[in-house]
């Protein structure tokens, strides 16, 4: 049986919800619990209302719940904003004196008095950690270690004050709060990692041998560049903050042409600037990996919120016709493994490869197990030793499979011509009609044919079910948990972690058997549903679309499914 609850830490931007949230996540993970955590933040540096939601469960958690069991409110507004989301038997924890709150059903903790006793209001975070820890019945020693780790870059005095504040919050709660509704039964701790989708993409890129990363900062892609920057020295990676996204993609292409694996990341607005570079990669046959961490659009949209509405854009980005691959990881594990695969496919086929994620996957944390050694990195270039014998080289030699052996400048004796104009096999500009035909066939038909052979199969659950939910990218978790929860209905799902080339045969074989097909997407245009129809002729029977900038949660999806069925039967 699943035993779980959801904790939300909420307050103004700048109050450090993320720090406290991450300390708690690490702590719960180390007690052997499974966690799913997500940040909801506004596009501002201070003020507003942010919250960090942690779901703690004794079985793996993949998505959010709608109701909160424990709300730790660090400011007055948070109480008002979140009280209607409180689950049955849920508790709100706040400093009633500090915020002059009269409401009765609040567990009153003198956060500010305790924090000030140790010198500053900034310690309210640690007090909060102590409070939550006591409520969940975890030994204080674990928190002490976590705080030491979290503040390892601070002075001994600061660390001690944090620990003392936490201890007082812990002791206060142990004395005042007598219920044991939220006591955690510790499982056996395992050696799991705690990371979010962007961490996984960054680590995947490092493992795949990315040596050059360049980007213009844009939420929610920015943390990919931060994580790569953090490890850049250890792995001899050059990172550069580009002047704009146009520069970023052209730099990634330049580095790739010279011989290294390179990558850039952005969101839809930045990708809008990059599209000429996408086309350049297609024409010059220079591999490049691009992350599109989607956020609601058009234009600047909702900078810190989530949406899956760039699918049509990424499918068609770049003018003209050329091969590409688009991966849409649904979990943190997939984000890691598919990033490695993206580099491999980009280099093998000498094409642009996209990794589409979104704010929800980018910023949500889970406990995961990754095996970096399960993926073998193999280069698809003329190696250095082999290069010594290459003299007269043609960059665009016409071959059966459309792939020309790729040489690295200065390694071969000959020279390499690459051109964005239509070109001959040698790489010189041409206007010859017959060469044009053969080059288009090479870049488009032949490469697509090859790519189709190695497409990532969709993942299915309960595939013989009467009703099949179809989704891509970050909705994986919500599809999975909805299917697991709805025991009374014959419900399964099909999740695509690669949408281009579209894995038609795998999709058709599953959907042919389904009585009802429902596509579930974080967009308004049913973009995956339309792609499914255009590629297979299968039309979903219904769509569940959410485009308010917030991710799905399992309760929301189940509610929508119930409505769908009641409509059908009525």
């Amino acid at each position, binding site marked *: 049986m699943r035993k779980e609850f959801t904790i939300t830490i909420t307050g103004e931007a700048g109050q450090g919800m993320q720090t406290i949230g991450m300390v708690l996540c690490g702590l719960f993970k180390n007690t052997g619990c499974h966690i799913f955590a997500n940040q909801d933040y506004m596009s501002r540096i201070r003020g507003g209302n942010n919250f960090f939601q942690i779901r703690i469960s004794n079985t793996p958690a993949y998505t959010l719940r709608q109701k909160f069991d424990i709300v730790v409110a660090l400011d007055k507004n948070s109480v008002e904003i979140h009280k209607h989301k409180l689950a049955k038997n849920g508790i709100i924890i706040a400093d009633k004196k500090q915020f002059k709150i009269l409401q009765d059903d609040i567990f009153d903790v003198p956060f500010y008095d305790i924090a000030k006793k140790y010198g500053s209001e900034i310690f309210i975070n640690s007090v909060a950690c102590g409070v939550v820890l006591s409520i969940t019945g975890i030994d204080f020693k674990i928190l002490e270690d976590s705080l030491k780790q979290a503040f390892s870059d601070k002075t001994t005095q600061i660390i001690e004050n944090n620990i003392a504040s936490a201890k007082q919050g812990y002791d206060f709660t142990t004395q005042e709060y007598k219920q044991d509704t939220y006591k955690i039964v510790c499982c056996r701790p395992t*050696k*799991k*990692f705690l990371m979010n989708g962007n*961490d996984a993409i960054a*680590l995947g890129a*490092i*493992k*795949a*041998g990315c*040596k*050059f990363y*360049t980007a213009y900062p844009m939420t929610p892609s920015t943390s990919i560049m931060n994580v790569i920057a953090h*490890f850049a020295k*250890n*792995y*001899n990676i*050059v990172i*550069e903050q*580009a*002047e*704009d996204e*146009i*520069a970023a993609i*052209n*730099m990634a*292409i*330049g*580095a*790739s*042409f*010279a*011989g*290294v*694996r*390179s990558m850039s990341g952005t969101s839809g607005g930045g990708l809008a600037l990059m599209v*000429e*570079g996408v086309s*350049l990669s297609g024409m*010059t046959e220079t591999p490049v990996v691009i992350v599109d961490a989607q956020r609601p659009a058009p234009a600047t949209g909702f900078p810190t919120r989530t949406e899956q509405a760039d699918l049509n854009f990424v499918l068609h980005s770049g003018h003209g016709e050329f091969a590409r691959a688009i991966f849409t990881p649904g979990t943190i594990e997939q984000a890691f493994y598919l990033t490695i695969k993206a580099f491999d496919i980009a280099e093998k086929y000498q094409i642009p490869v996209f990794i589409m994620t979104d704010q929800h996957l980018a910023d949500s944390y889970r406990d995961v197990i*990754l095996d*970096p050694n399960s993926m073998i*990195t193999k*280069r698809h270039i003329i190696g*250095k030793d082999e290069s010594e014998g290459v003299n007269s080289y043609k960059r665009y030699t016409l071959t059966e499979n459309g792939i020309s052996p790729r040489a690295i*400048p*200065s*390694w*071969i*004796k000959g*020279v*390499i*011509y*690459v*051109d*964005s*104009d239509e070109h001959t096999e*040698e*790489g*010189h*500009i041409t206007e010859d009609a017959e060469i044009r035909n053969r080059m288009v066939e090479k870049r488009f038909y032949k490469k697509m044919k090859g790519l189709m052979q190695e497409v990532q199969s969709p993942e299915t659950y309960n595939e013989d079910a009467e009703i099949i939910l179809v989704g891509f990218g970050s909705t994986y978790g919500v599809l999975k948990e909805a299917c697991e929860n709805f025991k009374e209905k014959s419900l399964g799902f099909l999740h695509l972690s690669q949408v281009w080339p579209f894995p038609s045969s795998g999709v058709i074989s599953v959907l042919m058997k389904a009585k009802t097909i429902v596509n579930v997407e974080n967009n308004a245009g049913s973009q995956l549903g339309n792609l499914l129809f255009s590629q297979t002729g299968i039309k979903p029977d219904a769509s569940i679309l959410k485009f308010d900038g917030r991710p799905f949660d399992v309760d929301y999806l189940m509610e929508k499914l119930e409505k769908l069925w009641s409509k059908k039967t009525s």
Partner: protein
Amino acid sequence: MEQKDFLSSDSPTWCPGCGNFGVLTALKKAIVNINKEPKDILLVSGIGQAAKLPHYIKCNCFNGLHGRALPVAVAAKIANHKLTVIVTTGDGDCYGEGGNHLLHNIRRNVDITVIVHNNQIYGLTKGQASPTTDIGYVTQFQPQGVFEEPLHPVSMAISLGCGFVARGYSADTKHLSWLIGEAIRYKGFSLVDVLQPCVVFNKKNTYQWYSEKAYKLEPSYDSSDKVLALQKADEWDNKIPLGIIYKKQKQTFEEKTGLYNLPPLIEQDIENIDITIALEEFK
């Protein structure tokens, strides 16, 4: 190396008498003099007539997008710092479409050389004004004459802190070739602005017009004096100075990032990367 080692199979498609030929001749001479093999030189260009130049020399060539030569060139240099990277670009490509990249690559200071064929007109799109077209010049698209202030690339580059700024003239290939050679030898971002007549569309800034005004800086000219350099850079209407207008050694991107202390990025083994240590931080 000799001139014949750099002979391309592709021949120029420029108009007869085009100023680009002089730049091509000068660049070829300069490349022979730096004593590198064709395989160790990379010519990068964007779009425009000047951008076709890399096809006419046997060296590695990346002919990319309009205005985007600089990002490609600097990143190729970062990936393999043993390459000699030269950009051939035009006034529209470098000062118009790619203006932002010029600003920021002067700041970035990667060791590349940028040669701008500045004919003060858009040739390939048939005669519109460029960012450097003189005020009053009438075109089909500017029938009342250009009224916007032209960009002054030399003074702009000096003001931005570019460590090597020179101006050459495509009719004086000997002098231009020397300038390009010095620019390539300079460690850091170097800019050579070349006066280059468009014999079809620019009826004002002709060979005669440039020849009457252009003069070479005296050997005694102190190119390290920034105030003097800015004064020289401002000369235009009656006399146009040619030579190394400003030169100052600065720390390069490669030096700041420690790239020179490592084998080129392209030579690093990527097949056996162990990320166990990085993963430890997520435990």
